[in-house]
């Protein structure tokens, strides 16, 4: 048992620090006697030596004599455990220093042993050593676990607590502060603090509950309650604890964690609230899955449509839903509303598609009453309008009879008074009309009778009718003639009403000898009409409310007290908006006002066709005739380059006027006219004989006739053709075809489209479709092919597929945009679902659009038409004509 001797395997290595050799021998002998467990003893005489050993070799336990030459008593324990933490130490004592030994144990020694005892029974020593080692190990384990607990308590979001059941002291981790907004001083470490922070409504119940668990010998407790935060608000918490018992099974501590579940609770509550919204909604709410099976009915739905609980197909509210779902899915629309009639009831069904769960949700409102009210309102308006207008008309007619002296001669005074009566009746009639118009607008019962209207004709008529009023104040009323008067597609009556309103206002608020000017401006996408006056102007603060109902602005009028209903501008606004246009004003007090009307440009060919169709069906119903007369000017290009487009247009207008006059002589009306380039088309409700006489007259007066063109006498040749339904053309289809072939649509240069797609079948299919629509079609199979072709061929539009090998659509797009030659060519991108948002970002522009595969042909054609439209009817085309 000397240093260096190899230890037997599994032996306990004991370091004995003992200066008395006799005592050391005693210990050595005692250990040697022990059966079972071998001990390896290292003996040193001094503490310093012992410390060296501890550093040099593994030792399981130290036996320490209290009276060493280089240490006094207790210090030794501290010194040893300072160098080798957690080293178990057993103090060896003589009989005289037991008190000191107890003290040493308190300082960290595991045990003490009288040397005398060792002498009597060697097994004592062995047992003491083993216990000491074991005890030290357990204490270590506890310390580590305590440390772990502290770390976990600090890391968790839960407020962790440790409640000493004897003292009622409560320890909290930091989460009580961070999570529940307490300052360190606010948190009191006792049970009553906790119970005080529980919501007063629950406190008693919760505290009683936790005590009941403890008293009943239970180990676990949990509860949900409201706990006050440091700021006085309450959090919802889920609290659970574990009862720690002592060896006798008595509860001594309770350890637990309190979790903040406020968010979860609120989510639950709002879910419950939402669920009850649907459930308790008095209107039926239903949910249908992708297969058309009803998956949810609220109670109102099951009560109102009991047959739906059988998930019966073919029920009106389920009808066509798969189509609706398809549409909503494809278009990304949020919702769809439709009306359904069932028995005596009318329902409005709102349908929305929930993409995440692939279901249709629908709620149904009974609108029977609303419909009834709407109908009554309409009837009322119609009745009132009749009841008010009839007496007015009667008064007016009799005044006219007297004024026209049918009932006998009148004196000049009487004539003047009759004039005053008439003026006031007209005013009253206007006001009644305003009120009725407003009522109709508000009930949504205004139907526009749109037709192609020449702004020149319309403005001319309006100015003519306002001339007297302007003259009475010596105000000049002029049309600021544009280069061309554009046509618009509008309800002429309504628009005339708007213009009269604006112009009469302008005259009213302009002092004597001022000026009111009407301008027309043709922009890329709209036609603007501007009414400018030199009047008193409008204050800036009044401008925003100008078009609201019943706004009478005190514009300082020359004639005070002249007021209307305050509805004129509001009605004007609605009328313009019904046309898809806008109306607004610019003004500065004292420097006149400008009122703008902007109307969208229309697609002429479409409107014309539509109009011919409706004229034709009217003719058929009324059993009357419809004639078409077309006039083409020979050498048009030549004339235009010599005299300019405007002069030629003026000449065509002259011819048109003659046609109109001639039609009127034949007791007919021109219902539609169309003028584009060298072609003039007029449709009239006259029969074949009338039509032929019109043509004959035009031929005699115009063909070969002399027209004044820019101060030069120019004989021009015109060619006429005509047809009449049903006299010379029996079927409506034939007539339409004839009209269309005579329409300038065909004379338009064909637009060229380049289809770029790597899939030959798709290229072929699209080519066929587009060619049928009259487009000229080129195809390219790849990006490089596209760029090659565009070097030699200009196109009007490119249809570009995204998914292509070598170079994808986006790369092609960016290359096209970099090249000045192709920069402005409209590009229609064909992309697959889901690609749209991420890849298309950043490439939008005025000449860019996309379609998502799979698309409807109509959608594709619509977009192509839309992208080509501004060029075909817009100013650019006109400018090209001029140059």
């Amino acid at each position, binding site marked *: 048992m000397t240093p260096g001797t190899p230890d037997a395997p599994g032996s306990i290595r004991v370091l004995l620090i003992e200066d008395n050799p006799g005592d050391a021998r005693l210990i050595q002998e005692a250990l040697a006697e022990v059966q079972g467990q071998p001990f390896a003893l290292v003996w040193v005489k001094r503490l310093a030596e012992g410390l060296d050993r501890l550093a040099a070799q593994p030792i399981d336990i130290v036996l320490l004599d209290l009276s060493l030459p280089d240490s006094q008593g207790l210090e030794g324990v501290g010194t040893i455990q300072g160098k080798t933490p957690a080293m178990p130490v057993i103090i060896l004592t003589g009989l005289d220093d037991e008190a000191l030994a107890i003290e040493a144990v308190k300082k960290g020694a595991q045990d003490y042993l009288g040397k005398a005892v060792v002498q009597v029974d060697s097994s004592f020593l062995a047992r003491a050593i083993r216990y000491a080692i074991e005890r030290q190990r357990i204490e270590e384990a506890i310390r580590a676990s305590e440390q772990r607990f502290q770390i976990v308590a600090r890391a968790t979001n839960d407020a962790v607590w440790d409640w000493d059941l004897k003292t009622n002291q409560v320890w909290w981790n930091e989460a009580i502060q961070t999570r529940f907004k307490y300052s360190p001083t606010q948190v009191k470490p006792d049970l009553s603090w906790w119970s005080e922070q529980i919501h007063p409504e629950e406190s008693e119940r919760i505290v009683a509950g936790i005590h009941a668990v403890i008293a009943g010998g239970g180990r676990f407790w949990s509860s949900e309650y409201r706990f006050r935060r440091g700021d006085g608000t309450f959090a919802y918490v889920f609290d659970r604890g574990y009862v720690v018992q002592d060896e006798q099974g008595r509860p001594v501590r309770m350890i637990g964690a309190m979790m903040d579940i406020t968010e979860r609770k609120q989510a639950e509550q709002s879910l419950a609230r939402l669920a009850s919204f649907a459930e308790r909604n008095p209107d039926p709410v239903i949910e249908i899955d992708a297969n058309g099976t009803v998956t949810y009915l609220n109670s109102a739905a099951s009560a109102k449509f009991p047959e739906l609980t059988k998930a019966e197909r073919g029920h009106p509210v389920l009808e066509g839903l798969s189509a609706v779902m398809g549409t909503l899915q494809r278009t990304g629309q949020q919702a769809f509303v439709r009306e359904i009639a069932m028995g005596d009831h009318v329902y409005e069904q709102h349908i929305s598609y929930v993409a995440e769960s692939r279901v249709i949700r629908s709620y149904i409102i009974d609108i029977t009453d609303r419909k009834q009210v709407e109908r009554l309102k309409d009837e009322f308006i*119609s009745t009132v*309008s*009749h009841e008010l*207008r*009839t007496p*007015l*008309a*009667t008064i*007016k*007619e*009799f005044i*006219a*009879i007297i004024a*026209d002296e*049918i*009932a006998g001669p009148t004196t000049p005074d009487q004539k003047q008074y009759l004039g005053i009566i008439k003026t006031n009746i007209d005013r009253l*009639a206007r006001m009644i009309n305003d009120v009725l118009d407003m009522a109709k607008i508000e009930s949504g019962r205004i*139907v526009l009778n749109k037709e192609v209207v020449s702004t020149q004709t319309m403005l001319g008529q309006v100015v003519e009718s306002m001339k007297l009023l302007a003259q009475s104040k010596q105000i000049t009323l002029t049309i600021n003639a544009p280069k061309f008067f554009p046509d618009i597609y509008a309800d002429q009556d309504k628009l005339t009403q708007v213009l009269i309103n604006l112009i009469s206002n302008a005259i009213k608020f302009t002092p004597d000898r001022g000026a009111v000017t009407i301008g027309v401006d043709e922009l890329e996408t709209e036609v603007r009409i501007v009414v400018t006056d030199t009047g008193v102007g409008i204050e800036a603060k009044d401008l925003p409310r100008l078009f609201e109902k019943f706004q009478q602005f005190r514009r300082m009028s020359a004639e005070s007290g002249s007021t209307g209903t305050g509805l004129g501008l509001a009605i004007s606004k609605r009328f313009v908006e019904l046309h898809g246009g806008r109306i607004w004003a610019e003004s500065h007090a004292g420097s006149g006002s400008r009122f703008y009307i902007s109307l969208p440009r229309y697609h002429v060919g479409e409107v014309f066709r539509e109009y011919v169709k409706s004229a034709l069906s*009217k003719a058929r*119903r*009324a*059993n009357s005739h419809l004639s078409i007369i077309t006039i083409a000017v020979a050498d048009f290009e030549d004339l235009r380059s010599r005299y300019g487009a405007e002069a030629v247009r003026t000449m065509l207008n002259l011819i048109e006027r003659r046609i109109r006059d001639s039609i009127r002589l034949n*007791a007919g009306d021109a219902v539609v006219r169309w003028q584009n380039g060298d072609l003039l088309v007029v449709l009239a409700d006259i029969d074949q004989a009338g039509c032929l006489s019109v043509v004959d007259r035009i031929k005699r007066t115009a063909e070969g006739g002399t027209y004044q063109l820019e101060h030069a006498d120019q004989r021009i040749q015109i060619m006429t053709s005509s047809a009449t339904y049903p006299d010379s053309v029996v079927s409506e289809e034939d007539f339409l075809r004839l009209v269309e072939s005579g329409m300038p649509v065909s004379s338009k240069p064909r637009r060229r489209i380049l289809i770029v797609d790597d899939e030959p079948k798709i290229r072929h299919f699209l080519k066929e479709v587009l060619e049928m629509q009259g487009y000229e079609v080129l195809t390219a199979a790849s990006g490089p092919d596209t760029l090659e072709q565009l070097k030699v061929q200009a196109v009007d539009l490119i249809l570009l597929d995204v998914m292509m090998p070598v170079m994808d659509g986006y790369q092609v797009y960016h290359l096209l945009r970099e090249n000045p030659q192709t920069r402005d060519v409209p590009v229609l991108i064909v992309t697959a679902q889901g690609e749209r948002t991420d890849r298309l970002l950043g490439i939008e522009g005025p000449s860019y659009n996309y379609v998502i595969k799979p698309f409807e042909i109509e959608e594709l054609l619509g977009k192509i038409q839309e992208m080509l439209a501004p060029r075909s009817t817009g100013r650019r085309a006109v400018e090209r004509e001029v140059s």
Partner: protein
Amino acid sequence: MAGKKILVIDDEEQLALAVKIRLQSKGYQVLSASNGRQALEVMSQDRPDLVLLDVLMPIMDGYSCLREINQRFGRGKMPVIILTARDQLKELFDLEGIEDYIIKPFDHEDLLVRIERVLQRASKPA
């Protein structure tokens, strides 16, 4: 076209009277009726050259009256001008056998022009 016989059918008797005076001043002969049934009675005794027919009338309205007229004289054989409010315009297009329509309240000048035109058309052999 003076001397032609015009039947004015309108339940608004005073307005109809104004129309009658106006037409007479232009040399027309005027017959009057205040509803469709009465008009049919008048027509069975005296055949007019043209009918001015109001739409909204009690006892027999303009539409039923028009049907009767078409039945009695043959479709389109009796020239009819419908007097109507703008609101009823849409229904008008579904009617057969009318020559023209005029929207109330109308201007007598407009009425005279239209009457003249319809009579002119009717006087021509079809």
